[in-house]
Structure formats: structure tokens, C-alpha cells
């Protein structure tokens, strides 16, 4: 085993959070943050595959220029539901509600989150929203695009707009409760000696995420309520025919939905910080820069929403302000990328599956971030706005970024969650498939976008076909890459190797307790006397001082 200083001697116990009690009721009424994390994991996995189904159908339709596989209305519903399900019901809860729920209290040496009942409530609220979303899918769908732009959504669409927006509205409350819970927990429940600058960077990024969840989600809630009021009661708010302003809707919607991008990607950055440190056995280079970069992103992220509206009719000068702020938000993101890279320097880099996902994340996020600059640049946005260029860009951020990190995090903490190892060879294969499939799917879309193929097109002009065929081919590889882990993870629950407390030789409090952890995480409250990611040669370990 490793000689890392944090390799505490665990107290062997047979009892863990999984076998502490049995029965459906013990799960559905649990207040254990770990079990709630598992409940979230199950729910969002279902939603991920539902959203993936819609993506698959879209890619199949786009194999040919003609709209021949399904009608335009069906296609419009599929891309709408793909977006809504993936964003509201998968990406936003993914890392915070699954990995954050499970691992954050253990990371800070707490027995649970500050408000365990609120945590359970947040899952039930999420489920009500998710069931509402599923109802919409079954009842015939919705065709507004995930952005619900007015006046199309309030006046012209004949689909289930109110049920959908109501579901998103409800789900928002689960975000708010999760964020609230995390903030209080991080402030109040850190183990003795665990000062702010000893926190793992995952905790910093979850903190920044929680701030956004609490401040931005209510704006979305208000916006959706206004939309429902206009659609149901014909009160003029956004619809010009009723005296409203459609741009007001866009301002309000993006005031949430741009920060929502950071709700998705900040936790991913936190996970990647953990993975890079653990698999190069080094402290993250520039720890404080990375920590404050998370807060800077959270802050600046509130001020850039207008870059979604650069061709929508805002004034030249406000466009300039939003453009320059959008360029500035790239700086903290760049800081992170450079610091992760520098962490590898003179490290001890292993190529375990989570690290492959993390390195893949850095590459894809870099491309996603840099292409974001194209969109922030005013003169260029005029051309590529609402084309496949932006589709490719945000998939590089959300799928190449957030989903890669989520998969990396699941693999990394799987031994802690389940007590067993996933099959490493299959893990590496899936990481490779996802990386190759992803790039083949989305890189051609940058070229398509500059060529001028608009997004949300059911049929397209024939000269775009070759690139679309490449994209669809990539998507089928990507689909296999996502299906394989689902199979071997389930397999590993029964047949995987017993993991032990710390299979990676990683630093961090979560690796000092048993796998799976006991219901209260630690048999004794840990006292922290070391910095985050404290990997030291044995001869230096004794130097660590107690504060």
C-alpha cells in the first residue's frame, strides 16, 4: 500500500451504509446522504438514457438531407426533449446531487449534510419534476426547444409547454435545496483542523456551484412562472401581440441559463482537480488560484448572459460589454487548465480509467473553451450564431467537459460507493471509446457551423451531408462508450474485486474510511492536520505539523 501520510489505519467494520438496514422503505425514507446520492444516481441514469435515445434518433434522422425518418414535428420534439432532459434532469443534478451528495460530507469529515431531511426532500422534488418530464414525453412531447423562446412557446406551440415548464420549475427547487445544504455544510460541518485552504478543490467548486444554484435558479423559476401565466391566462409579458417584449424573456432566461452552464461545468472542474491530484500523486499546482478561479467563474458567469443575444437586437454598446465580459470569464477557466497541466509536471502519473477521463476532459474542455472565444468575439458571432458551431461548442463543454468528468468521478469513487472495483480494462476501453466517439461526433459540427448549417434543422441542404454522416458515425461509437460502463458497473457490484479502503493510494478523507463507508461515515471524527493532496515521501511525512 502507499506510504502517503494520510493512509490512516481504518477500523474494520462489517456494517456499512448499504447493509445498515434493508427494504425499500429504508431507502425511500433514508436521511443518509450516501443513500440519497444513490437514489439520485439511479434516477439520473434513467434520464440520461432517455435523453440519449432522443439524441440517437436525431443523429439517425440527420444521416440524410431529407427529413425522411420522422416528421418535422417529431424531430422538433426530439431535440427539445433531448435538451430539456439532459440539462434539467441529468447534467444539472449529475455531479452535485450524485457525487456531491455522496462524497462531499465524507471529504470534509462530516457525518452527513447539515439538513438530511431537506436533502431527501430535494430528491423527492426532483422526482416529481422528473415524473412530470416523463409524463410530457409520454403524453406527446413539447416542441419549443429547451429555451422556450417566446412568443413561440406562449402563443404558437400546440404542445405540452405548461407541463414541461412546470416540471422544470419544480426541479429547480431541488437544485436550490441542494445548494443551500452544501453551503451550510461547508461552512459549519468541516472536521476540526480542516481550514478553508485545506479543503479539496472539489469542495471549493461545489461551494461556487451552490452559490449559483441559490442565486440563479429563482430567476428561472420566476421566468417560467411568467411564461405559464402568459400562455395560460394571456397576460401580456413577453408576447408583443399582448404588449409584451420577447427580448425580456431572453434576458431573464439567459440570466439563469448562462450561469447554469457553470452549474454543470464547475463541479466537473472540481472532480478533475481531484482526479489529476490523485493520479499524479501531487498537490494541485496553484491551489489558491484554482480555488479562487471557481469563485471568479461563478461571479463573472452572472454577467455574460447577453452573449446569447448578440444578433437578437440588443444595442451595439451592450453587445460590447457582454463580449468583453465573456472574454474575461475565459481567464479563470484557462487558469484551471494550465494548473492541471502543471500538476502533472514531475508527478507520478498513472493511466487508470478515471485519469483517462480527466485527461480527456482537459483536452475537450480546452477545445470547448477556446471555441467559446469565437462566439464571444462579436464579429464572428454574427456568422456562427445559432449554427452547428455553437452546437459543437456547448457539447464540448457539457458532454466533453461535464459528462467526461462525471464518468471519471463515478469510476474514481466507485470503490468507495460500492466497495468493489470495476474491471479496469473495460474501463479504459470505454474511456477511449467515449473520447474518440465524442470527437468524431462533434468536431465535424464546427466545420458544419462555419459552413452555415443552422441548428435545429430537420432537413438540410445536400452539401452538408458528408459531415453529418461523420457525426452520426461518431455518435454510434459514443453510444457504445456510454453503454459499456452501465453494464460493467452493474456486473462489478457482484463480481468486482473487493476494493479496500484506498485502492488508488489517494489522499483525502474519503479514502481513510472503509469502503463502503459506515452509515455515519467515520467511527471517530477525524482531526485534520494536513493540507489537501498531501503526498510526501515517507521521510518527509513526519514534518507535517498540527495546527
Amino acid at each position, binding site marked *: 500500500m502507499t506510504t*502517503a501520510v494520510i493512509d490512516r489505519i481504518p477500523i474494520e467494520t462489517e456494517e456499512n451504509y448499504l447493509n445498515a438496514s434493508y427494504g425499500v422503505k429504508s431507502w425511500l425514507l433514508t436521511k443518509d446522504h450516501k443513500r440519497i446520492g444513490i437514489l439520485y444516481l439511479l434516477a439520473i441514469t434513467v434520464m440520461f438514457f432517455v435523453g440519449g435515445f432522443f439524441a440517437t434518433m436525431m443523429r439517425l434522422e440527420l444521416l440524410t438531407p*431529407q427529413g425522411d425518418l420522422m416528421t*418535422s414535428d417529431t424531430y*422538433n420534439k426530439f431535440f427539445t426533449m433531448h435538451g430539456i432532459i439532459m440539462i434539467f434532469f441529468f447534467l444539472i443534478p449529475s455531479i452535485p446531487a450524485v457525487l456531491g451528495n455522496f462524497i462531499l460530507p465524507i471529504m470534509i469529515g462530516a457525518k452527513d449534510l447539515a439538513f438530511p431531511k431537506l436533502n431527501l426532500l430535494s430528491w423527492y422534488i426532483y422526482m416529481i419534476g422528473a415524473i412530470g418530464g416523463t409524463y410530457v414525453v409520454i403524453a406527446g412531447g413539447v416542441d419549443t426547444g429547451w429555451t422556450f*423562446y417566446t412568443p*413561440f412557446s406562449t*402563443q404558437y406551440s400546440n404542445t405540452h409547454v405548461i407541463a414541461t415548464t412546470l416540471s422544470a420549475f419544480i426541479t429547480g427547487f431541488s437544485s436550490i435545496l441542494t445548494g443551500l445544504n452544501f453551503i451550510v455544510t461547508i461552512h459549519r460541518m468541516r472536521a476540526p483542523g480542516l481550514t478553508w485552504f485545506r479543503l479539496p478543490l472539489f469542495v471549493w467548486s461545489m461551494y461556487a456551484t451552490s452559490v449559483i444554484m441559490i442565486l440563479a435558479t429563482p430567476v428561472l423559476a420566476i421566468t417560467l412562472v411568467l411564461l405559464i401565466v402568459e400562455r395560460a391566462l394571456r397576460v401580456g409579458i413577453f408576447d408583443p401581440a399582448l404588449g409584451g417584449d*420577447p427580448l425580456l424573456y431572453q434576458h431573464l432566461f439567459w440570466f439563469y441559463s448562462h450561469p447554469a452552464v457553470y452549474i454543470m461545468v464547475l463541479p466537473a472542474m472540481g472532480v478533475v482537480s481531484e482526479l489529476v491530484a490523485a493520479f*499524479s*500523486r*501531487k*498537490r494541485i*499546482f496553484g491551489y489558491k*488560484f484554482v480555488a479562487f478561479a471557481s469563485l471568479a467563474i461563478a461571479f463573472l458567469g452572472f454577467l455574460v448572459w447577453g452573449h446569447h443575444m*448578440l*444578433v*437578437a*437586437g440588443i444595442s451595439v454598446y451592450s453587445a*460590447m460589454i457582454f*463580449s468583453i465580459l465573456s*472574454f*474575461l470569464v475565459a*481567464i479563470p477557466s*484557462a487558469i484551471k*487548465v494550465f494548473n492541471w*497541466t*502543471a500538476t*502533472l*509536471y*514531475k*508527478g*507520478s*502519473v*498513472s*493511466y487508470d480509467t478515471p485519469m483517462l477521463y480527466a*485527461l480527456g476532459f482537459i*483536452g475537450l474542455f*480546452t477545445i470547448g473553451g477556446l471555441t467559446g*472565444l469565437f462566439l*464571444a*468575439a*462579436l*464579429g*464572428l458571432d*454574427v*456568422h456562427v*450564431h*445559432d*449554427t452547428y458551431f455553437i452546437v459543437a461548442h456547448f457539447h464540448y463543454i457539457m458532454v466533453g467537459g461535464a459528462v467526461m468528468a462525471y464518468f471519471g468521478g463515478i469510476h474514481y469513487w466507485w470503490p468507495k460507493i460500492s466497495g468493489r472495483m470495476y474491471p479496469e480494462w473495460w474501463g479504459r476501453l470505454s474511456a477511449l471509446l467515449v473520447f474518440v466517439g465524442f470527437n468524431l461526433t462533434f468536431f465535424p459540427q464546427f466545420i458544419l457551423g*462555419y*459552413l452555415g448549417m*443552422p441548428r*435545429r*434543422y*430537420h*432537413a*438540410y*441542404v*445536400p452539401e452538408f451531408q458528408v459531415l453529418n454522416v461523420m457525426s452520426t458515425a461518431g455518435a454510434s461509437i459514443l453510444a457504445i462508450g456510454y453503454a459499456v460502463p452501465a453494464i460493467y458497473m452493474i456486473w462489478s457490484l457482484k463480481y468486482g474485486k473487493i476494493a479496500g479502503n484506498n485502492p488508488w493510494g489517494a489522499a483525502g478523507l474519503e479514502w481513510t474510511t472503509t469502503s463502503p463507508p459506515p452509515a455515519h461515515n467515520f467511527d471517530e471524527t477525524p482531526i485534520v492536520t494536513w493540507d489537501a493532496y498531501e*503526498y510526501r515521501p515517507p521521510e518527509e511525512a513526519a514534518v507535517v505539523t498540527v495546527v
Partner: protein
Amino acid sequence: MFNDFPLFPDAASSIANDIDAFYFFMVGVCGLLALVVVCLIFFFALKYRRRHPDEIPSGEEPPQWVEVVWIVVPFFILMGMFFWGAWLYFQVSRPPDDALDIYVTAKQWMWKFQHVGGQSEINALHVPVGRPVRLIMASEDVIHSFFVPAFRVHTDVLPNRYSFNWFEATKVGKHHLFCSEYCGTEHSGMIGSVFVMEPADYEVWLSGGAQGSPADEGKKLFEKLACDSCHATSSTGRGPSLVGLFGQIRPIQGGSAVKADENYLRESILNPQAKIADGYQPIMPTFRGQVNEEQLMRLIAYIKSLGARTQQGSTQPVSSGGNQIPGSPATTTGNGRELPTQSGSNVTQPSPTSTNSPIPAQDTP
């Protein structure tokens, strides 16, 4: 499908090459940055790979000043990108004064173009090469977006508000026109073509199919709606005279002033109480519901024709040589909305370069 496989769009407007130059700069700089990061990752990951399972690295780090380098250097690169992009945006946003005005009405799921000479067309737009064209656009229903990739122009078309766009075509030929803001069922069918013609061909094309200029039609409508009973040509009416109004800065009640542009005229017709000309009573009724988008455009074209101070050359109606048939305005139907065969089915349109049959057919849809 492999015969026609472009990787880069046609550049057919005066701004296109500037935007492409900026794009290549961005690709170069960003590509270089990405390459540096990826190479460093590969280099470090291979060089410092774990040699045995219990290995603990020395903990040696790069010097701290590199943090400053990779904050300050990207900052200046980003600001350079910002200024270049903003400079282009200014050009894209400011049409030249001598631009030719064309009125655009978007609705689910078609584009309708109205030329100042009276020609109108659907899903097809004929413009002369080498002359700036300004589009005055409004939507009759949801938000659409006017996008011609070859021109690198892109502007949302909003209901109840005019948005503007301009381009100067530099290459004769046919170019795609797309709606790029999702607008419902047939969004991907809301496409058309822009035909860029030699000026001589364009003049010939203009000479056919004119049905009374928008200004002339607007004048009829102006009289029909009895606008002239208040807005007389002399300044003695209950409302202000509209002669020479367009483009002026007009004082309004409350002490401020407003420029009498298209959006102001539009608002004053639909919502007269919003801004009341100084010295007049707020007695004008709204015409919301009585005039549709196209009629609004005609009224505004008429008001503009009463004297324009800033738009010389662009607002004077081109003399219409066509016969004037009362009733429905004739339209030249462009390519149909079916996909993707539309590119070949454009039988009623003259070839943009042809001088043999430049007169648009006059079939009313």
C-alpha cells in the same frame, strides 16, 4: 453526396473576407494554444508516468511566476480578440447611407421581400452586385433569423419591431438563405435563395413584375385609412405634418426628443400614445389590428417618400415601369419550400446571370 463536399463557405459579400481573416486568426491562435496544452499533457503524462505502484513524487513544482505568465499573456490575447471582433461588429451594424432598402417580412414559414420599385418575391431575393443593401425586417408571428452564410450576415427578425441588416454582395450567383432561429414545424423549410445579379441584369429584372411601389401603395392606404384628415401636408391639421419628417430629431412631450426612424413610425401607428409630438393632443387612435406587417411597411415607405433628410437615394421609389393591377400585390414565387430539391426547382426565376429571360413571372400564390 461526395461530389459536393465543401469545407468552407463561399465568401460573397464585402464583409465576408474580413470575417474570414479574423476567423483564421482565431483558429490559428486557439489552435496553437490547444496544441500547447495537449502536447504538454502528453509529454508530462509519458515522461512522468508511474514507474512502480508505491511511487511518491518529490513534490517539486514549476516556479510560481508561471501563474502570472498564463494570466497576463492570455489577458492581452483576449483583449486583442475583443477589439478585432468589436471593430467588425461595428461595420456589420452600420449600413452605409446610400444603401438600397428592401423590406422583409418573415412569417411561419416563408420570407417575403418587397423592393422599393414594387416588386415582391417569396423565398427569393434579387440584389445587384456591388451595391449596399439594407434590409428592414419584421416578423408577423414568432422570432425568425435572417442568415445568409455566404454574406456572413445574421440578424434576428422580431415581431413588433424592425431589425436591420445590411450587406454588399461581391459575387454574382445564387446563395443560400436560412432561417436560423427555431420557429416551429417547418423551421428547416424556411429557406430560400439570394440571387446576386450584375447591375444591368438587375435593372432588367426590376423592370418586370412591379406592382406599384410600396410608397405608392402606402399613399393609397394612407388615404383609405383617412390618415390625411389629420396629417395634412400643411401643418394646420390636428396632427403634425409628415412632410420631411423621416430621419429628423423630433421633440416629444415630456421634454425629450426622438429620432423619427422606422421603429418610431411603427410605434406611432400601433401605439400612438407612447410618444406624442410636442404641441399636439394625444387624440390619435391605434391602428393595431387594422394594418398588417406589409401594410405597415408600405405606410412607412410612403412617409419616408414624403421627404427624407438622411437617406438620399435609398428612399426615393424607383420608377416602376410595370403595369399597375389593383388588388393583391403580385409576387414572384421563388423556390418552393420542399427540401432539398428546392435548389433545382426554381423554374419561375431568371438565372442570376442570364440576360435572356430576366423578367420574373407574375404568378400570385
